[in-house]
């Protein structure tokens, strides 16, 4: 078998829900050994989030948890106990990376902050993912995805201008902060090859949204002001960038280039209105009357299916796509041609399909050997075999609730 990129890299994940687990997932899928430390008792909160088969809650069958934690080794620890902290430190001493996503100050309270841990392991790369980061006036603010997305400047731009702003669905802030954290970890590890020293990385989910994702609004504010931030089904400053209803669903059409617009008009059968000088300035349409032009286009849309429109448009090099629902995506011919999904068997949840990864590596692609761990599945292996505690000690730790 080919050497996987992160073979030999040891990662400790002390995280829950999405951000830290997703960060560790990116490393686990490329060969890192990830030990996921869950709080003794109920474990990662994602376990209670579902979705569950038949909607029957079961911590071993949560779809969210399963989708984020494959390939990981799972142990449980009570880090509020001295013994739990001692075991955690032993794990960290032999690790390259520690990923956590608890509130600022929490690791310090446990005596497990970076300043303490780097004394045990100067090469440690530690990342903390929090809503507002470790510094700044809001560092202690409580925030879930909807809050980060709002403060990050994303929500204000999504939805009907006459209604409330919408958040990005599915708690995507966790995925965005997680992928930024994973990227920063690799930068720190590459630097460590030269310096021999680890670093602490402070990732703020709000800042992740406010920069590469929404930062363009801040930049263009002096020129464009606040106008037209939330525009419902419309988007962009050149008409059309629209979500049109069609015969069996919705399609999205966006034609920034004049040639694309011309070809789109041809796809529509060169209707008479299109020669009206009133509809020549597409920037003006976008600003003043996109609904008026939509009303001229939608009757045509309603007589065609999304696949028909997709084909008619793309054959003429008009940028258009169907709005696919999850079922349509999963069964899509391109996804199938790409071998996008892999199957993993889990002792409780059964065999399920999982997305392989966000991209394809020619030589060292994602490899998934094992579904997510059961709660505390690898306790004995890690505590006894890796860390050298005796069977008696292990039983004692179990009895006293440390693991």
């Amino acid at each position, binding site marked *: 078998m080919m050497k996987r990129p992160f073979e030999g890299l040891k990662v400790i994940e002390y995280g829950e829900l999405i951000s830290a687990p997703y960060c560790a997932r990116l490393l686990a899928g490329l060969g890192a050994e990830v030990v996921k430390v869950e709080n003794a008792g109920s474990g990662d909160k994602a376990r209670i*989030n579902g979705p569950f088969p038949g909607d029957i809650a079961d911590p071993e069958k949560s779809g969210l948890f399963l989708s984020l934690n494959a390939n990981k080794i799972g142990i449980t620890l009570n880090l509020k106990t001295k013994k739990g902290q001692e075991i955690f430190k032993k794990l960290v001493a032999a690790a390259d990376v520690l990923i956590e996503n608890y509130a600022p100050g929490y690791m310090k309270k446990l005596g497990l902050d970076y300043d303490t841990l780097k004394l045990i392991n100067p090469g440690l790369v530690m990342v903390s993912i929090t809503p507002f980061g470790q510094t700044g006036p809001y560092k202690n603010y409580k925030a879930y995805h*909807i809050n980060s997305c709002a403060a990050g400047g994303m929500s204000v731009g999504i939805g009907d201008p006459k209604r409330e702003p919408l958040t990005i669905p599915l708690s995507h802030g966790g995925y965005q902060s997680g992928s930024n954290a994973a990227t920063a970890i690799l930068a*720190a590890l590459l630097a460590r090859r030269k*310096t021999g020293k680890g*670093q602490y990385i402070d990732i703020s989910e709000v800042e992740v949204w406010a920069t590469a994702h929404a930062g363009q609004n801040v*930049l263009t504010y002096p020129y464009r002001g606040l106008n037209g931030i939330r525009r419902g089904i419309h988007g962009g400053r050149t008409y059309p960038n629209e979500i049109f209803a069609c015969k069996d669903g919705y399609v999205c059409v966006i034609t920034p280039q004049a040639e694309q617009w011309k070809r789109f008009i041809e796809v529509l059968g060169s209707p008479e209105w299109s020669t009206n000088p009133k509809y020549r300035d597409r920037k003006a349409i976008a600003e003043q009357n996109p609904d008026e032009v939509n009303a001229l286009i939608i009757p045509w849309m309603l007589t065609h299916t999304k696949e028909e429109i997709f084909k008619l448009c793309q054959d003429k090099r008009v940028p258009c796509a169907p709005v696919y*629902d999850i079922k349509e995506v999963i069964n899509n011919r*391109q996804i199938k041609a790409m071998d996008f999904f892999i199957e993993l068997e889990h002792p409780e949840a059964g065999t399920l399909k999982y997305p392989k990864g*966000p991209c394809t590596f*020619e030589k060292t692609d994602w490899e998934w050997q094992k579904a997510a761990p059961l709660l505390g599945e690898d306790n004995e292996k890690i505590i006894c075999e890796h860390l050298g505690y005796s069977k008696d000690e292990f039983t004692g730790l179990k009895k006293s609730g440390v693991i």
Partner: protein
Amino acid sequence: MQSLEGYRLLDFGTAQAGPQVAQLLADMGMEVIKIETRVKPDGVRLGRPMAGVNITGVDESKWLDMQPVFHMMNRNKLSFTINLKHPRATEVFTRLVKISDVLLDNFSPGVMARLGLDQPNLEKIKKGIISMSLSGCGESGPLKDTLVYAPLIISLGGMESLLGYYGDKQPMNLVPGYGDTNASIHGAFAILAALWHREETGEGQHISLAEAYTITSLLGETIMDYNMNGRVPGLQGNRHPVLCPHGNYPCKGRDKWVAIAVETEEEWKNLCIALGAPEWITDKRFADLASRRQHWDELDKLIAGKTAGYKAYEITDILQKVNVAATPVMNCEDQINDPHFREKKTFVEMNHPLVGKELIYGNPMRLSDMPPVVERNAPAMGEHNDYVLKELLGYSPQEVIELVEQQVIY
């Protein structure tokens, strides 16, 4: 020293997705050379500068260097203009590839191969090189030639079908180019993963990133729900699968809102008291999470009735004091003035020689010893031709003059 110092990336990126991958890496010290040509400049450079940029007395040929959005995505980079279709360009470019680590493009599939710059050819020039291509739907397969922009990416990837008001059918448009920005961060991750592998083994490789399916890879919980229960989720609105209440509620002022989310019973009680509605705590409709979820619309209306009496920052402060998750729904004006972003310098004030002051977003990957920096303005077209040709490739001044005259360097 910066974390990625010593690595060199040749950036063929245009528009957003490609350039932002390289920008994230340039901020961390990678030497990024944007490969451009006046024959066909990056579309973001083209056209009249954004309304409001002062172009009085500026020669039109300078407009290429006067686009704020270009500056944002291309800061910290160098620019080298070369017309790769010129017969003499191959020799020059080959020399550059020999001293580079990564090549990045987001052209339509097949373009790099036609330029002779696909992975097999690159490997012949420089063993161990890494190349990445970002595309809408992948480089092979039935949809490979699909022409896309960001909104089409999330439509094809399945996310658009979730984006709209709960209970409605009509999806809403997502204006910031999430399909692109999501691809960018994952692209940056993948390049560093491939570099790590090369450091360990000497082996290079090609990475293919299909933007639509990078989005799909983040829809795990809905994919699971479909596989487990055959359920196809519709528009999600502001609803959360567990938390309730959970929404953006109106506040005093024009288009002002506060985002509030409640997880625990304690947070729920604190919210009721802080909003001056302790009677909700004993209201049967809201007795527990399940009941609150059942009466979600009624609850949203009641909360909206209360929040509307406060400014967004005011109610945020009140709720955070009792440990309830609340934040203003910030627009860019809020963000520019917000004390938190100001203290953290989330947005960096740059001074562009042609445009003046620009507030450019920083890089959120805050490494303790080697924090990313935003310090160099985006390059003017061909600004670093001399550096590349003379310092990196060792051409003599006379040779450089020839290359420019022959429009190889163009």
